[in-house]
């Protein structure tokens, strides 16, 4: 047994509806994260998320299968109007949630004060990426786990873990974001709405697609053309950070390509770096995605301690990725 396999990393999986939560639990998730159907969570999309009643039933379903439920209340409370966020924390606790994932100081304070028995996880939206910032949250609010921003290489995660005394969770699969989580306002320039305040990046009521007779599809956000895809070319979401722009005779992606993270090949290194939990992105995705990705990564994590080889299952996930492309992102970054 290798050092990396001595401690089994926890697999944290997304759920946007009770049906996808059941799919995640059935596929072997150790923990499932979800949110309420309002502005308190960063996936506030139409038809998505949970009512308190649905959450209660779903928590019972997950617990029966040995999975924990983590509730993301991870947008930033509006000044002078924190009631909705505090109510969400109270509801999550009443529903039996195992942890609350939060970024805003008012939300963390309310949870720590009123529900000290519920674990607190620091959302990636808090963008805490130094021992000092992480120390502030652990000492002030008793945060037990930090979801690390997607800016670190694996050696940097190992170095950080040596300096902090709190669990760390890292993303291993799914959509990527520009690396200023919690501070990105790109979406609000085009639509007036942002992930940080209203829980929506590129809100669908500002998105439209138009295909011409040649099969060329324009993807627009707030009336701005973000990208054009030729017939048969894999498409992506029209988020500004993944827009393809032309300037001075050159056309290309300004911030990042439409590409998804897949850190399967780095799991052993992440375990050695002291990571406690592995997070799969995709609360907006369907049951087919959840079942495939969770079962493939279940096999991959179990494979670290002598289970079956997961390579074929992981390879099949490429078809589910945005733009049909995958990357190891900053974990193997070649830039600084």
């Amino acid at each position, binding site marked *: 047994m290798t050092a990396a396999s001595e401690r089994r990393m926890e697999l944290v999986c997304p759920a946007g509806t009770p*049906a996808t939560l059941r799919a995640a639990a059935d596929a072997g998730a150790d923990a499932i994260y979800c949110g309420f159907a309002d502005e308190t969570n960063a996936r506030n999309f139409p038809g998505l998320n949970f009512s308190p009643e649905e959450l209660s039933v779903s928590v019972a379903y997950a617990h029966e299968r040995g999975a924990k439920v983590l509730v993301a209340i991870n947008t930033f409370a509006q000044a002078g109007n924190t009631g909705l966020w505090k109510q969400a924390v109270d509801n999550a606790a009443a529903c039996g949630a195992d942890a609350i994932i939060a970024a805003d100081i008012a939300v963390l304070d309310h949870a720590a004060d009123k529900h000290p028995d519920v674990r607190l996880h620091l959302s990636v939206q808090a963008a805490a990426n130094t021992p000092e910032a992480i120390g502030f949250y652990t000492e002030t609010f008793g945060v037990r786990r930090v979801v690390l921003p997607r800016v670190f290489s694996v050696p940097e995660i190992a170095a950080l873990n040596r300096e902090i005394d709190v669990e760390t969770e890292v993303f291993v699969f799914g959509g990527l974001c520009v690396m200023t989580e919690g501070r990105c306002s790109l979406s609000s320039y085009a639509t007036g709405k942002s992930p940080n305040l209203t829980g929506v990046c590129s809100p669908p*009521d500002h998105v439209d697609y138009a295909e011409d007779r040649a099969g060329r599809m324009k993807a627009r956000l707030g009336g701005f053309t973000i990208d054009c895809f030729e017939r048969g070319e894999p498409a992506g979401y029209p988020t500004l950070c993944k827009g393809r722009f032309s300037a001075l005779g050159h056309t290309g992606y300004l911030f990042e390509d439409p590409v998804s993270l897949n850190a399967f090949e780095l799991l052993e290194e992440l375990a050695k770096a002291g990571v406690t939990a592995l997070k799969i992105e995709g609360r907006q995705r369907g*049951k087919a995605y959840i079942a495939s990705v969770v079962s493939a990564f279940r096999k991959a994590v179990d494979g670290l301690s002598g289970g079956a080889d997961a390579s074929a299952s992981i390879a099949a996930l490429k078809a589910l990725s945005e733009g049909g492309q995958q990357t190891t992102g900053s974990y193997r970054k070649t830039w600084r």
Partner: protein
Amino acid sequence: METFLTLLTRRLVARRPDLLRRLGTVVHVPIAIVPEDLPHAFLLSLDAIDSRVTLCGKDEIGDAQAVIRAPLLVLLGLLDGTYDGDAMFFSRDLRIEGKTEYVLALRNTLEEADLTPGEFLGLGAPAAGWINDIGSRVLAQARCLASAGAERRDKLSGRHS
């Protein structure tokens, strides 16, 4: 066909009021579902008491606020959760036009509906299990045939190009 689908849809909505709550603003909104390999389209309007499924020509969907286009097998796979809607969109097998928020709300509601043939027909166990089993076998066989046909076409076009 229209009457049958409308009746089943109304019964589903009556059995599952949670689905209308999830739909939100899409209630009453006509959405066109266009199987690309069939000559007709379906115009769907969901409502607590007056849900409708209308069969119409593909050029008669002008009232639709949003349009979803895909091959029939892809649409059926999205209904029963075999396929992921975003993945089908990335691969361009699924195309959407009009109000994206309505498409998203409908997609997420259908995901929650777990719309197996047995659920849509309103059957209880064990009949639902039998129907679902038969339905999934027939669809799996149809997908195999469609996939084999596509491969043959690719080979032929490669040979002649």
